[in-house]
């Protein structure tokens, strides 16, 4: 084939458009590598903006987000949403007038009856804000006045993967960029030596063999691969394939990368694919991370009182508590989006035993993280989010006994909490009915949460878009309202 023709075929329309700068991605990339290299605006302030759409649109209250994702769907009815009526009506059937034809999962749709069950755990009001917190979360209760509880979250998804994907990407179907990727794309990185989006996982002791998570949850979707979340692990190799192989020195690695970059440059000139430049940048980032990751993961240098604050689990790498200390260390280094997943919150059966263990896994460390950020002056510009992908039913899945019950997935209402980043502390937003089933006041949709978080980061959620396959995509899809009532 004619080589010239081949060249034009390789340089397809999308690459062409991106090269012209119509995609924000190319420019955001420019910002990441060299904030001023490829801009030609006249004022210096305009040079600082990442792309054709200028961010921040508002003076940002938060610079970074720590999202403590409680994967599996924690039971709001046993942790935060106190419903004494359920204890009173224990064992009675969920009235149809309340259920209103809610779609159920295959796990309880065949159940003959839906016996209501309150929590076997005690609830008390805490702090000046008088927030309800169950005895399972004593440390969270202690810091209630720092938190903003949203009792009226709702989603459309009823199963784990679509529901988590919805929270992270704004769509139940996979393939869209994750929240952290959108942030990295829109606001750029604040640290050249670490990725802007870092993910850490931990297993819940309540249900150690619970639902798995997939790395596409922190994928970049159609955004440049530079914005992909990077998973940090406990153990010898926090980031896989980062270490030099045995016998290769850092100097040799440097030389190899230089030569590789030169060859990749040649390729880019020929094919014009922006992903080649991204690849070069990623290799460089990996090279810098060889030292920066070791530094950030060196949790040993933390003084003992820190471990005491986060609880005994923090001494064991890979636990939620240890990840919380790392999250704080990453926040100190200005990583934009720090995502922790704690698994095992899927209490279909044996809820009382399992949830107690789950709560113990996360309670002290979550609270300690918030207070530790506060004492270091970081909470005011770090937004901490705590919550799962949906709630759990007010009726028992399986047989209800005196000491045992289970709960199925419940999308119509659940509780999350937030702290810092300009979110109003010491408040409870929204309300569910006496059955803890439907929202009766101030509902907050997943897209509303996303819009609100973006707003705190200084981003108008309707302006953070990326054109792909002929459509401008948003994290909030075509909806989402900023919930001004919870902003301070």
């Amino acid at each position, binding site marked *: 084939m004619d080589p010239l023709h081949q060249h034009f075929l390789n340089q397809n329309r999308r690459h062409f458009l991106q090269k012209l700068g119509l995609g924000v991605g190319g420019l955001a990339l420019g910002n990441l590598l060299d*904030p*001023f290299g490829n801009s030609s605006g006249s*004022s*210096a*302030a305009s*040079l*600082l*903006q990442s792309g054709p759409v*200028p*961010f*921040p*649109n*508002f*003076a*940002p209250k938060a610079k970074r987000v720590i999202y403590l994702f409680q994967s599996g769907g924690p039971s709001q009815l046993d942790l935060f949403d106190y419903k004494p009526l359920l204890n009173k009506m224990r064992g009675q059937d969920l009235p149809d007038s309340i259920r209103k034809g809610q779609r159920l999962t295959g796990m309880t749709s065949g159940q003959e009856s839906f016996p209501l069950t309150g929590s076997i755990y005690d609830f008390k009001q805490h702090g000046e804000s008088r927030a309800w917190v169950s005895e399972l979360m004593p*440390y969270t209760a*202690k*810091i209630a006045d720092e938190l903003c509880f949203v009792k009226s979250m709702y989603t459309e998804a009823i199963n784990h993967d679509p529901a988590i994907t919805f929270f992270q990407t704004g769509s139940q179907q996979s393939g869209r960029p994750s929240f952290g990727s959108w942030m990295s794309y829109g606001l*750029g990185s*604040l640290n050249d030596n670490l990725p802007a989006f870092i993910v850490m996982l931990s297993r819940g002791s309540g249900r*150690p*063999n619970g639902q798995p998570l997939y790395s596409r949850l922190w994928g970049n979707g159609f955004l440049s691969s530079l914005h992909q979340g990077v998973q940090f692990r406990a153990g010898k190799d926090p980031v896989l394939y980062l270490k030099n192989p045995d016998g290769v020195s850092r100097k040799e690695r440097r030389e190899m990368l230089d030569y590789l970059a030169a060859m990749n440059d040649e390729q880019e000139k020929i094919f014009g694919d922006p992903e080649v430049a991204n690849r070069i940048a990623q290799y460089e980032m990996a090279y810098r991370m060889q030292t920066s990751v070791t530094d950030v993961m060196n949790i*040993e240098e933390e003084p*003992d*009182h820190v471990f*005491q*604050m986060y*609880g*005994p*689990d923090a*001494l*064991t*790498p890979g636990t939620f508590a240890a990840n919380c200390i790392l999250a704080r260390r990453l926040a100190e280094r*200005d990583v934009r989006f720090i995502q922790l997943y704690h698994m095992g919150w899927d209490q*279909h*059966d*044996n809820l*009382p*035993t*399992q949830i107690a263990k789950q709560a113990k896994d996360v309670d*002290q460390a979550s*609270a*300690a993280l918030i*207070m530790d950020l*506060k*004492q*270091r*002056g970081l909470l*005011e510009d770090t937004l901490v989010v705590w919550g799962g992908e949906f709630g759990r039913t007010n009726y028992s899945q*399986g*047989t209800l*006994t005196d*000491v*045992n019950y289970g709960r199925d997935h419940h999308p119509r209402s659940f509780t999350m909490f937030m702290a810092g980043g300009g979110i109003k502390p010491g408040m409870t937003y929204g309300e569910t009915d006496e059955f803890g089933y439907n929202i009766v006041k101030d509902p907050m949709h997943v897209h509303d949460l996303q819009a609100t978080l973006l707003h705190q980061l*200084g981003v108008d959620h309707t302006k953070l878009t990326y054109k792909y396959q002929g459509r401008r995509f948003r994290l909030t899809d075509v909806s989402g309202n900023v919930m001004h009532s919870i902003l*301070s």
Partner: protein
Amino acid sequence: MWLDYIGKFHPVVVHLPIGALLFTLLMVLLALKQYTTYSKAIKLGLVFSFFGALVSSSLGYVLYRSGGYEATAVQSHLILGWVSTASLAVLWYLFERVAFHRVFFPLFMMSTLAIGLTGHFGGQLTHGEEYFALPTPAPPPARVNLDSIQLYSQAVAQIFDKKCVSCHNFSKRKGGLALHQPQAMLEGGERGLPFEMNNAAESRIITYAQLPIEDDLHMPPQGRPQLTSSEIQLLSYWIDQGATFDTSAPMETFPEEVQTAITQFLPKELPDVGPLKISALEALQAAQFRVSSHLADTPFIQAKFEGKKIDPSVLNALDAAAEQIVVLELPKMELPQNFWPQLKKLTNLQKLRLDGTNIQDAQLTDLTELPLRSLNLVGTPITAAGISPLLQHPTLEFLYAWDTKIETAAQEKLQEQTPIKLVFGVFEGFAAPQQLKPPQLTTEKTLFDKLLSVDFYNKVKGNVIRYTLDGTTPDSTSAVYENSIPIAKSLTLKARSFKQGWLPSEVFTEDYFKVRKKVENYTMLTRPSNRYSGVHKLFDFEEGTLNFADGKWLGFSGNDLVFTTKISKQEAVNNVTVSCMESIGGWIIYPKRFSVYARNASTDFKRIAKYDYRPEKIPTENTKKSFTVAVDTEGFTELKVVVENIGKLPSWHPAAGEDAWLFVDEVLFW
């Protein structure tokens, strides 16, 4: 009445004696050289000054009597006026008699001073006391909290101050009315109260403002700055709401037009400043600042220092962008002395991070003039005395002072003195000693036939694992785990974690079995389920986990586990153990009975041991359990082991009546 009118000429006449006396002073000085030339002029000057003073004082007295002035405010002016007049009379007399008497000069100076002071006090009366105050730098605008707008102090009072108070104040009460403070307003004036509570339409302050401008009662008077319509709207709203002085409400609760009116009086979030120069940006970058835009379409920026040392290039870079920097982060830097004057130039700095720097108490006063909202002093050597100048800072909202030299005892007191949120980082309940986690083994193997060595994970700094092999609880004197623990016989290992400052962990317990008979030949009399099969796994020393599908378990649905095995003399054992699991969700229940039968060549099987299992309570979670019976195999050649399935799931189980599962992972002879 005519007299009152004449009184109004006091402010005109007063300037005559002052000028004349100063002229006389010049003459006196010249007369020291050429007395004869100037003595006449001195005399004339003194006469003119005296009569000027006399007329001024008289007119002043008339004006004072006509009212409108507070007696205490006028007193010094009045007395000094008469004193000056009298001393001028004495001077004139002295000069007539003896020319330059030795008292003349001191008295002359005293008169000049007295007349000057009189003028000063007079000026205070007409221009207000603040008129002569030295110029002070304008304080940074106070932070606006839109959740709590104080309608009176943040807006209404400012209208009064701007448009009314110059004539209606403490020392000058036109029409008997003063509007400089709430108390005075409520006293009213000659015509009564300035406003009727809750009724703006009937309130004088509003109706007078709406009179035709020519009207004598129109306020403010013609020629003075007038109230704007939005100011009248705001005043009316305030009066209609009860004209309160100390209530506050969130901004969104006010009507929209009132919100607009209020907004005019609130300090601007960020002032108008010039654009950030590209050279300034480049200088910041070159000095190793990470610069980001604070807000799109504005020149404001945030700057974080990522270099190693604050050198002159850093200070110059800050200078070039002094107006545009809103957020400045300099964590853990060694700040040189010449940094502080530079910092003062950042007139729009709202957030400053100085955590971990060498800032001293003395430098904190430098920060009082910046419009800061957040100041981070974590990990610096500042003290309680040092931060006290900051406590009255008008815009500061957060002050982080954890890990400083401020003692715990002083913290509460400091907080009481200020609305600024002081964060000291003492969080009740987080600092108490806590219990360590029990040690964890690296291996799961607990069954062996010769020798086993076990190891613990021990990654935690300062963590000491102590253990015993005799079943006693480990304490601070027990053996310390350093290298692998060899295990040569059946025993119980107990271990605990110890660490300075922590409570010792719970006891970790593991039973080890040295198996005496390794089962290699056996005959199964029942069949496990196809899904959980592989009979050899019963004797492979591989224990199952709590996950019944991990491939190490044998499952029997509704039926028992029964097998026989030959036993030789050398293999004589004392115990038989069967290890089972229970999982409600998996329909797996512990066996109801476990028996061992034995026979020799000539006899039938005879039961030699049995174990009946009665659960204490209804299970709630997945567990594993071992059942052990003691046996005496002396004289027998074959053993039969029977582990009895409970049969049907019991009544408490969600699937009551269905076939129960029996799960076994190991059968041991030891």
